[in-house]
């Protein structure tokens, strides 16, 4: 079993703590996305795993073996860099074969293996080309093939798709995911794009301020955010200040709202924050939260309502066939889907 474990991993640069006491286990063959805003420490964490940074404290353990004192070049991990870091002085096939050359494979052997990998990333006929003759997507594939050349124990990717345009990027997300499932290699991808993380990952690790805010399956993190940061960072979320009473009732601006058992409460009674996804907002005739329709945006596959509740902006998303009759400027009352409400600490 090649489980990757981090124990109290910390990295300080001078007075700044980039990665703060991170402890987690990544199961064998898992596809993990490290997700967070820029400066949250996700790239530093990846570089610590790769051995490109020395931890200030903590340990990295792979399959029971402590890796903390193993230099980068002896860890046997594959890595794809944000700049791709392909070698312009080598041909495509020699780039892919480079890690094999370092391990002393003879020319025929390493070219056969490199050709296999190029076929795998659909660049079979491109081996003789130079890097500057390839498009962005093709370079991406070369970098992935090179990272996989040595059958790495762990495959690390630092924002690998950030340089690609939107269409190609979505295509490559699917391709990378399928490739990983086929090979079963434990993979850690750094990204700041939550959609990318939700598309590819088995496990999403949301980071902020150098700390892990939440770790879990994508839909689990989406449905059940651990705190207000995760709720707002993963997908769109309406965050409403409210007060939680002892009998599981919410009070906000004079309106009382009873919670069901299916709703998730993650804080003590007192000042709290209600998180509701736009698709869980309803416009009703029954009593509820008063609001006015501030803007209606037709997005084709859905209709987005921007609603104003006493100065707080909420968004609601409807399927075209559920489009409410309320028009711009109308006063409406809002209700939230039972079981989809999450009450978080303020």
């Amino acid at each position, binding site marked *: 079993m090649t489980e990757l474990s981090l124990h109290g991993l910390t990295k300080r640069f001078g007075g700044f703590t980039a990665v703060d006491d991170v402890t987690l286990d990544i199961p064998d063959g898992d596809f993990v996305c490290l997700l967070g805003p820029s400066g949250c420490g996700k790239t530093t964490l990846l570089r610590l795993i*790769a*051995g*490109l940074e020395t931890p200030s404290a903590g340990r990295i353990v792979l399959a029971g073996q402590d890796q903390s004192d193993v*230099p*980068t*070049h*002896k*860890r*046997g*991990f*594959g*890595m794809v*860099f*944000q*700049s791709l*870091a392909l*070698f*312009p*002085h*080598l*041909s495509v096939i*020699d780039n892919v074969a*480079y*890690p094999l050359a*370092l*391990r002393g494979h003879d020319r025929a052997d390493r070219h056969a293996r490199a050709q296999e990998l190029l076929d795998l990333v659909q660049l079979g006929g491109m081996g003789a080309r130079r890097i500057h003759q390839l498009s962005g997507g093709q370079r991406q594939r070369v970098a992935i093939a*090179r990272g996989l*050349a*040595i059958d790495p124990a762990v495959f*690390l990717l630092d924002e690998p798709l950030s340089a690609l345009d939107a269409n190609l990027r979505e295509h490559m997300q699917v391709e990378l995911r399928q490739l990983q499932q086929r090979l079963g290699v434990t993979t850690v991808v750094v990204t700041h794009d939550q959609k990318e993380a939700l598309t590819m990952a088995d496990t999403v690790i949301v980071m902020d301020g150098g700390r892990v805010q939440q770790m879990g399956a994508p839909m689990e993190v989406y449905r059940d955010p651990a705190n207000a940061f995760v709720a707002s960072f993963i997908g769109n979320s309406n965050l409403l200040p409210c007060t939680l009473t002892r009998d599981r009732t919410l009070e906000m601006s004079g309106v009382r709202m009873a919670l069901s058992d299916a709703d998730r409460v993650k804080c003590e009674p007192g000042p709290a924050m209600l998180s509701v996804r736009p698709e869980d907002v309803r416009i009703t005739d029954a009593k509820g939260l008063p609001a006015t329709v501030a803007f209606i945006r037709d997005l084709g596959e859905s209709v987005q309502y921007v609603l104003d509740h006493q100065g707080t902006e909420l968004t609601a998303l409807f399927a075209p066939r559920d489009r409410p009759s309320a028009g711009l400027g109308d006063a409406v009352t809002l209700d939230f889907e039972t079981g989809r409400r999450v009450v978080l600490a303020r």
Partner: protein
Amino acid sequence: MSAPQKATPGWLAAIPALALGIFFIVPFAIMLSVSVAHRVPGGFFEPGFELASYIRFLSAFFGSILVTSITISAAAAAICVTLAFPFTVFLAGMGRRAQTWILVILLSVLSLSEVIIGFSLSTLLSKTAGVGNLLAWLGILETSRAFTPSLFALLTGMCYLGFPYAVLVLYPPVSRLDPELGEAARTMGASPLRTFFGVTLPLLRAPVLGALVLVFVFTLGVYLLPQVLGRPQHWTLSVHITDQAIFQSNLPFAAAMAVLLLVVTLMLVGLTLLLGRDAGARQ
């Protein structure tokens, strides 16, 4: 594609063109004409066309001087760049402030003339006032000795002269090199030493060749250091050109030697660049 509006007016090019014409092409033409002029023994020269000066060069004596000149300059260039390349790689890895200070110090070395460097080194390497005393005091040498004149002293002087230029040529490309390239090699299993020789050096092939050519050409023109720091057998063609022009008053022969030195230099530089390009494309 329509021609874009130029930000620089074209006539500005006339200024460097004129300067190049007046200060480079015209003197070169004069030198060419002098090299084929007829020498008046004991006097000056009179216009004419004869290849006597060139033929005189085709002797074993001057041939060996040409080989000596090229060998000494090539050795100086090789030693200089071998030192300057790792130096620049380390320099580029330092903090901004340290880099600025070191570059300022290197630039200030450029203000020293060949004369100052030559005589400073000859003092420093002498028996009575030089490092010999220090080495004797440390017990490394039994008694102080002179290290000059010698090939070692000459090469030291030439390297001192060429080093700042080599660093200044190497610094921009080395500092622009994406550090992720070296890191990528390390994640793939290359030790730091292997990364240096397998990735850093080949990626910087062109600037390294550029630095080699620059120091080679630069030291080829040096005529004072061989006389101050070298023995007569280390006197380069530049020394003999000066000798012929100033002390022997044989301007046609000096001009002919200068033309030949120029031709041989151009051929060698062209060959180096050609070899560098081929190696880059073949791999």
